[in-house]
């Protein structure tokens, strides 16, 4: 894992003390709210519906058990005992008191955590595949490059005041678990004809009120040019991005208005005009950072040891959990374990202090002390021995953390919605809970198979509804909560935007409508076909017909 150097630690410590000063001056009235607001936003402090909200960065979604314990401590001491993991692999606390936040941040700094680059018009916390370093088919560990981008972008003088926020995601393999196609810049590691690793560069993706799937502007970029090329992208954006209208300021609008080809040419021109290799990764630097992410020393273990196979045969609950929540590891004898934060009846992505501590402890005992946060708001233990899986599962079950639903209909992404968010039109969390309740029966969920439901409480799309296999968007209809459904969205390597199925549904109707869509799928699917595949084969018509049959 990346460890701070002295420089990082000094920056973070300075920021805490600076912010402490600023908070004091605000509390004494020396600073007005107008003066203070940009300062608090630079430190991740928002004002929400009920209270302040603090967003803490989890770079590329990687946490140590020690850091997780600190988050649990923060939840208990500074909040109301829980936190919310977000779609950008961060964590939010919903109730901290402003007067306590400097102390809170000082505690976080002890474990190399902070809230820098979690808000404002800067290059935000870079996200990455949660299976980074352990995915079976990976070209390279994407976190190395996420970290390089982080170091380059943190407090970058030229890019601290961009036209709008800027989000970057990196995946190390063809399979995309990081939703790179809906980011301002998405980087996908690939190889050229000679087998040299590099990046496919995607630009101009995003969600919000204008959803766009990113366009590839360079099919292959050699690794060492990563920063100079990104710098060129940002320079073009910084010069031409619209600052006059916040709704049009994202890079996706610029790419759309000039066209991806022209945008690519502009970047290329800017890039080639840079002093030769000005920003190329110096020799040694890449290796230095790679060393932080060096794989652990794995034991020499057989794949699928007998005890593991036996428990799968004898314990159907375990078998089901393995099927949904356990993924293939690159190393024989090891496995990747997903810990669902979508227990039925919970709030998607929420974890209590006790749960955080339990996961930290299990990570120490079974997973080399490392934890990942997924953009689908779950946690991942990346390095578990297959021979330990049965015991790990029992302990997770004991903590209520073994819901066997990853990738299934109850593994829902939901934004905070009207329960917490001041911009919301409608609630998201209770809709997710009602869907979970309706599809409580895990056998039924497993029969339905992969189905990603994503819910946003307003058009800002924090809940990724545009890329849900079934997307649910809260709208306001004459003062009532109303929900518009889309189908056919996807955030993976074959990304697509969902299409609206038709008129929306009231709060009390929306779960029935989702069930009707599922029924339409079940009636039409061919053997082995997932929801999205049936939609892609047949289009929206059979779904529409069933949904609006009664009209």
């Amino acid at each position, binding site marked *: 894992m990346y460890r701070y150097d002295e420089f990082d630690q000094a920056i973070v410590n300075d920021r805490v003390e600076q912010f402490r000063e600023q908070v004091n001056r605000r509390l004494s009235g020396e600073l007005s709210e107008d003066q203070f607001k940009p300062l608090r936003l630079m430190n991740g402090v*928002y004002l929400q519906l009920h209270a*302040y909200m603090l967003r803490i960065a989890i770079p590329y979604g990687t946490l140590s058990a020690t850091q997780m314990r600190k988050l649990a401590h923060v939840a208990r001491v500074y909040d109301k005992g829980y936190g919310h993991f977000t779609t950008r692999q961060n964590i939010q606390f919903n109730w901290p008191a402003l007067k306590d936040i400097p102390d809170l941040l000082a505690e976080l700094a002890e474990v190399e955590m902070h809230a820098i680059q979690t808000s404002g018009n800067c290059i935000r916390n870079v996200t990455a595949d949660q299976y980074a370093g352990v995915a079976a088919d990976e070209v390279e560990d994407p976190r190395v490059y996420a970290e390089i981008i982080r170091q380059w972008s943190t407090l970058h003088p030229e890019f601290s005041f961009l036209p709008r926020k800027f989000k970057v995601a990196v995946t190390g393999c063809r399979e995309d678990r990081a939703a790179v196609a809906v980011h301002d810049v998405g980087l996908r590691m690939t190889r050229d004809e000679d087998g040299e690793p590099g990046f496919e560069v995607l630009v101009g993706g995003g969600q919000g009120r204008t959803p766009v799937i990113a366009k590839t502007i360079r099919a292959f970029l050699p690794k060492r040019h990563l920063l100079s090329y990104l710098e060129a992208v940002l320079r073009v954006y910084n010069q031409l991005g619209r600052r006059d209208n916040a709704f049009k300021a994202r890079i996706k609008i610029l790419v759309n208005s000039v066209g991806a080809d022209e945008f690519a040419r502009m970047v290329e021109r800017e890039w080639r005009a840079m002093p030769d290799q000005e920003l190329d990764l110096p020799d040694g630097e890449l290796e230095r950072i790679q060393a932080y992410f060096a794989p652990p020393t794995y034991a020499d273990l057989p794949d699928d040891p007998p005890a593991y196979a036996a428990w799968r045969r004898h314990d159907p609950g375990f078998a089901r959990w393995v099927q949904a929540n356990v993924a293939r590891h690159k190393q024989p004898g090891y496995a990747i374990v997903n810990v669902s934060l979508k227990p039925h009846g919970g709030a998607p992505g929420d974890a209590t202090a006790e749960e955080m501590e339990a996961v930290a402890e299990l990570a120490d005992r079974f997973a080399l002390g490392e934890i990942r946060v997924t953009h689908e708001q779950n946690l991942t233990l990346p390095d578990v021995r297959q021979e330990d899986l049965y015991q790990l599962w029992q302990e997770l079950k004991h903590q209520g953390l073994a819901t066997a639903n990853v990738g299934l209909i109850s593994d829902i992404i939901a934004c905070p919605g009207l*329960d917490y968010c*001041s911009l919301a039109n409608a*609630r998201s969390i209770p809709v997710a809970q009602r869907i979970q309740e309706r599809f409580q029966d895990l056998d039924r969920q497993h029969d339905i198979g992969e189905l990603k439901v994503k819910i946003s409480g307003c058009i800002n799309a924090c809940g990724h509804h545009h890329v849900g296999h079934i997307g649910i968007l809260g709208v306001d209809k004459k003062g*009532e909560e109303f929900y518009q459904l889309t189908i056919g969205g996807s955030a993976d390597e074959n990304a697509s935007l969902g299409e609206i199925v038709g008129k929306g549904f009231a*709060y009390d109707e929306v779960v029935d409508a989702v069930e009707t869509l599922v029924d339409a799928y079940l009636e039409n699917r061919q053997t082995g076909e997932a929801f999205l595949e049936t939609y892609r084969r047949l289009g929206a018509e059979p779904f529409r017909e069933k949904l609006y049959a009664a009209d």
Partner: protein
Amino acid sequence: MASKAKGPKAVTANRLSDGVVVYLTPDDRWAETPDQADWAEHPQAQQALLERAQAFAGTTVVAPYLFAVQPQADGTPRPSHMKEVMRAKGPSVRPDLGKQAEWGKQAERGKQADWGKQAGSGRPAELADPGPGEER
């Protein structure tokens, strides 16, 4: 951010030091429940209410604004719209948190809020435009 909709209004804000939702009372205190809030019917009186509140924006509260209320038979106001009901109580999905947690103990309103029904309490179309939000 004065609301354009007609009808009675009160002023709410968040307390500066800890963010708790508060309401301006007739005697210029900041109470934690809306039933203690001062309210006004006429736009001019509402403007005056807001100005009284803004005088506290230095060291006491953050971002005061007017919101629609329905005065009850006893003259105490209640928030009309879902978002303000939510602020007054706490998250609908966590009845154990926020102000509703204490109300529950007092069994004050006789019933634990039925959030399903509250949904239909009618928010004016203007609120569809995100109100006093901030850039994320």
